[in-house]
């Protein structure tokens, strides 16, 4: 069941490529605009590059969130799922995984390619990749929470940044802490451990809140 869902999401993304290509284009544009505005100061540009990549991923991922549950809620899939005997939590986690796979992973790969192209040194590049791998699932999890909470809201595109960007701060701080430490050739284990802890914590609580929120949304629609 869940495997079919994943296959279906990937197939949908492959057919409807503008839904993941547009955020990707947005991310590259954000990086381009910032980098061009720093052309007169190459040292600053090199310094801020990892932070800029992280921030541009956070911003681009916001664009993908309104559609995360909206289509399934609109065509009644979520209502049917809630009424079925299957528990909702695995569905939410699968949706989060698909969101990460289809929307966030391309952003990470593109960001790493950009970093490589702009000449980030190898150890920093590896740390950047590691923080992406462990940190961006948190972005998807919190994003799913935000998307489910704003499902019934008007103008969810305007609401999501206000709700989510403050919650993204911890992962951003520790990811950039790890990158900074690796630039100074210091140990990064501590930062990585905290990111993993954040990942475990959000995978329990954010998915739980998203589940409760979706369920209550269905309950009020039908009753």
């Amino acid at each position, binding site marked *: 069941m869940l495997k079919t869902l994943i296959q279906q999401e990937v197939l949908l993304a492959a057919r409807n490529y503008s839904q993941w290509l547009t955020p990707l284009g947005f991310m590259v544009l954000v990086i381009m605009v910032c980098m061009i505005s720093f052309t007169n100061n190459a040292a600053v540009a090199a310094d801020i590059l990892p932070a800029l990549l992280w921030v541009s991923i956070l911003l681009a991922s916001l664009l993908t969130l309104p559609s995360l549950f909206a289509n399934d809620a609109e065509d009644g899939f979520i209502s049917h799922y809630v009424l079925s005997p299957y528990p909702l939590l695995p569905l939410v986690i699968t949706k989060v995984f698909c969101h990460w796979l289809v929307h966030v992973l391309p952003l990470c790969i593109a960001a790493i390619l950009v970093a490589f192209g702009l000449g980030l040194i190898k150890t920093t590049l590896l740390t950047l990749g590691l923080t992406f791998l462990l940190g961006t699932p948190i972005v998807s999890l919190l994003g799913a929470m935000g998307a489910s909470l*704003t499902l019934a809201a*008007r*103008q969810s595109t305007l609401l999501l940044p206000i709700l989510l960007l403050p919650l993204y701060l911890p992962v951003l701080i520790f990811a950039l802490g790890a990158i900074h430490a690796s630039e100074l050739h210091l140990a990064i284990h501590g930062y990585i451990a905290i990111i993993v802890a954040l990942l475990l914590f959000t995978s329990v609580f954010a998915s739980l809140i998203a589940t*409760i929120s979706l369920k209550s*949304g269905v309950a*009020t629609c039908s009753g």
Partner: protein
Amino acid sequence: MQWIKQHLLSAPHFYRLSTRLLPWISVITAILLIYGVIGGLFIAPADYQQGDGFRIIYVHVPSALLAMAIYSFMALCAVGVLVLRLKLASLALINSARIGVWFTFLALITGSLWGKPMWGTYWIWDARLTSMLVLLFLYIGIIALNDAIAERITREKSVALLALAGFINIPIIHYSVVWWSTLHQGSTITKLHPSIASSMLAPLLAMLAGFLGLFALLLILRMGAELQQQVTHD
């Protein structure tokens, strides 16, 4: 529990009780605030290091503590909404948010004005300051979410869930000065032996109680107004 739910926490009973308590709360709050302002600004001695500049503490500390206390109260209300399905709890939650956002704003502004002469900067990305700013955005997010959802039950539940999710920030704010030793000083009064002279402490505690009374007063007025509005609409 059922009795409490039906009698003490029902809307008509709350309205009757609160209108009866209102004059008492107003008088006590006014006395506390007047004593706090006079005691803090005129009677308390100047600080040996900061001179008269320290007197902003009488606004800064109460509003910062209130900002956190109100959020904790909102998380409690959120449990009331989600678990006990109390109608009054969601009313208290959103109206507390609308008041709490101003206390948070006041704490940030007074702190920033205090920071310039004492630290040499209005703002620094210190752990305490950053987590307070996150609290401000949590308040704004809760209010924005509440105003964006039209359907009542979905709105109340979504707002309660968001308030609960944001509650994780409160212990981070409280322990930020312990975990990260950055610019903001540690706790002065919320510990067993306060590191502040009693002539300075008494007005501070009065201001704190006064701010708490002010919050209760504003909350009761807001909730009462909204309950009346609901009655006239129904």
